């Protein structure tokens, strides 16, 4: 083998990684001024924002899902809009519509009134209360980063991130998200009740006289740069192989499917799952002081990336089998590439 010199004349990799980590930590610090506890949820939201994905937050009311997104929008100085989904909401209500306006000369003309979907950070509160027709209006915006109304197509500005919330308990009058919609979310984060010691902090921060101010740490352009840095993280073959095996293991009757996935999964992850695993693992690798992702990074992000892409069958629902238990089994069964086990 010919001798090779490491001629890293572009030392920006280490600097970029350090800058990335610094900005990430600053945003997290600002968000946690208001948000008590839930470190995994906060990191997941930030990771999805930087990786260029969308987040579905699931939890019972009162756990701070909406507040988390609001704090994030304050920390990241981007255009923020909130949509409270209701059953009577129509696509035009979120995309925008043509309205009759009066010009300065007194004439009337149709002009396009942009809806709340046209922003940088969208909080889609209680998204499962909207009808599938309205939910589907989000599909184009989330995937193609554009909104088409009539013959008008509007390109959405980067960064564009939809953070949706839904309540898993109160299911009456709701419309479960279709699989195509679920697949477009990079993460599905489960917001759980806080710990006992966190309640003291919640009381002190929210019921006192002092108000917490969220400082603007960065802006949309900075987020786009961070996204480019994250995409530049190196990917070895072993990590690719492992991510592919994990995704294939969620698909019933595939080459790597486990007994549990064969029995309880009706629909496995799509190739978007591999993309999500790679992007999220890259962010995770930088945050852990590495320049290339490892199989441990993929394991760390497997749950939020895959849990909403594993569609269970009726037998699983009847047996109280959850997607996380399926992923547990997959992580245990799927062998690491080049493993001696």
């Amino acid at each position, binding site marked *: 083998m010919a001798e090779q010199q490491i001629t890293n004349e572009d030392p920006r990799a280490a600097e970029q990684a350090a800058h990335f980590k610094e900005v990430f930590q600053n945003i997290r610090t600002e968000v946690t001024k208001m948000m008590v506890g839930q470190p995994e949820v906060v990191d997941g939201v930030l990771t999805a924002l930087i990786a260029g994905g969308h987040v579905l937050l699931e939890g019972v009311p009162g756990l701070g899902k909406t507040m988390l997104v609001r704090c994030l929008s304050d920390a990241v100085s981007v255009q923020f809009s909130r949509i409270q989904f209701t059953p009577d909401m129509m696509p035009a209500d979120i995309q925008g519509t043509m309205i009759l306006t009066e010009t300065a000369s007194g004439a009337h003309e149709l002009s396009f009134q942009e809806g709340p979907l046209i922003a940088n950070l969208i909080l889609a509160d209680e998204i499962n209360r909207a009808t599938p027709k309205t939910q589907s209006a989000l599909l184009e915006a989330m995937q193609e980063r554009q909104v088409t109304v009539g013959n008008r197509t509007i390109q959405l500005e980067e960064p564009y991130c939809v953070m949706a919330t839904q309540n898993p308990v109160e299911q009456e009058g709701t419309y479960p998200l279709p699989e195509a919609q679920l697949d477009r979310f990079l993460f599905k984060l489960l917001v759980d009740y806080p710990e006992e010691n966190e309640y003291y902090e919640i009381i002190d921060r929210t019921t006192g006289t002092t108000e917490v101010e969220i400082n603007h740490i960065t802006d949309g352009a900075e987020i786009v740069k961070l996204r480019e840095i994250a995409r530049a993280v*190196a990917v*070895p073959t072993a990590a690719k192989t492992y991510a592919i095996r994990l995704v294939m293991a969620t698909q019933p009757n595939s080459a790597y499917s486990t007994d549990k996935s064969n029995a309880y999964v009706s629909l496995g992850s799509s190739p978007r799952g591999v993309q999500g695993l790679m992007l999220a693992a890259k962010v995770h690798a930088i945050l852990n002081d590495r*320049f290339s992702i490892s199989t441990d990074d993929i394991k760390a992000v497997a749950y939020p990336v895959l849990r909403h892409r594993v569609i269970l069958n009726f037998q699983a629902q009847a047996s*109280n089998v959850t997607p996380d238990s399926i992923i547990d089994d997959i992580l245990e069964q799927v062998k690491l590439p080049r493993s001696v086990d």
Partner: protein
Amino acid sequence: MANTDSLRKHLDGLARRGARYLRRYALKEAVEWSMRHVHLVALVVPAVFVVCVAIERFAGNDLWVLSPIVTVLVALVAPVAYVLIAGALGFALRPVNRTYSLALFDRELGYKDRLQTADEFLRSSDLTPFELASVEDAIPYAEKATNSRLQDIRIATPTLYTGKWGHGVAAVLLLGAGMFISFFVFNPQVEASSDPDELIALATPEVLPPVDEVFEAPQDSRDEVTPPTHVPSQTPKESVVVESTPAESTDSPLGRANPSDSNPKQSVQMGLSAGMSQDNKTGSAASNLSGQANPDKKKKETKSEPPKEQESKESKSAIDKEQPKDESATGIAGGKGTSAGRQASSTDVTESLNKTDQDDLDTDVDLESDDEEDEEQEAANAARPMINQRKAAVDRRLSPSGMMGQEENEQNNGRGGASGRKKTRGVAAMLLGVPQPDQLRSQINPGRVKIQRERAVPHPSEADTVASESRGEIDESIGKVARHELKPWMRNVVSNYFLAMREPPTEEEGE
């Protein structure tokens, strides 16, 4: 700028060390795996030895060709050979390469794939800044791995299953049992005869008798080729009795001098089979003759046209006048070949002819009575059970349903006509002759009862008036409304019910 030489050297050294570990691990793993089953392998040779010796003693076949000493040696060598072969196979089949070796260090030392990633990136020529940074990042980890102690790497050591040594004792006992059976059990000739020549003669393989003795009585083969009309002079029962005597069994073609031989049984079986074959031949001969003698009668049986039936009745009445009626004849049954053991002769043939005619005449009365039902069935074109005859429904080929009725219409050219068997619609009460239980007075039949009219007379009921009052305010909060969790068995009941509801229909149900 950093030189990759040091990193390469470290990675090369780690790869070599990792390969050694992996080979050692593979060998240990294979040995461990084989040790799990070696106790069973140790039992194989003694068990086979015992079985073969037992079969040899009781059945007289030579199955075990090894001498006792060789048998013991084989029983001792087989487990060792099994462990060695399994270890060699495991060692050879375990993939050991550079990447695997570095991955071993990454995993055991918690380096997050840094070493194998750096090694992969070093092999490529065009590196991105992050790949170069990844290689640089791996240098201190490679040095640390080089200086790491070998004991740090965790490799499972094979476990010897000492609790399975009882199988070795069992193997020894089996060997002893085999030896005991081979030498002492069920060998009366060895015990009775003290002459060494007799012992040698007993030990030598059995010799077949001379050729002229073998071909003395091959009667069976000749009986097999006798024509059906040939009546053997010896009845089957006589042949069984004669050939089953032990004296004649020694004269059989495969006769042996050994009294424990099974040739007498063979001769008995051969005699029985010969007699049975003769019976079958005679029965078939009788059927052929009776069938050839009255072909017109058979046609009349199958045809149902009225003019031909009248003609057949006339001819039958003429035959009836000429020949007296014989109540003991069974010509039809014999003609169908079901009466085995009857010898066909000319008198029997004529008897069968007479019986056939007589039965045809008897059945004509029934045919007349069944005409109405046949017409009904033909009109309905449906398969209905012949209740008065206690038979299953017939299809359009006049064969019992279930045998021929399930076949598809061969001439299904879409031109109509009689199709396959149709399903009978209705209930048993619609068929004539099916008894229905009378309805007892003041008792209803079991099952659902449709109430046509209900005599319910409204009666006024007296009750206290309820004074309306406001609901009032809730004094305290309701609290947390918990979801009612079903008990496991209740959940299983609900789960099984809905799973059964959602099961796809089977092919029979789908049809």
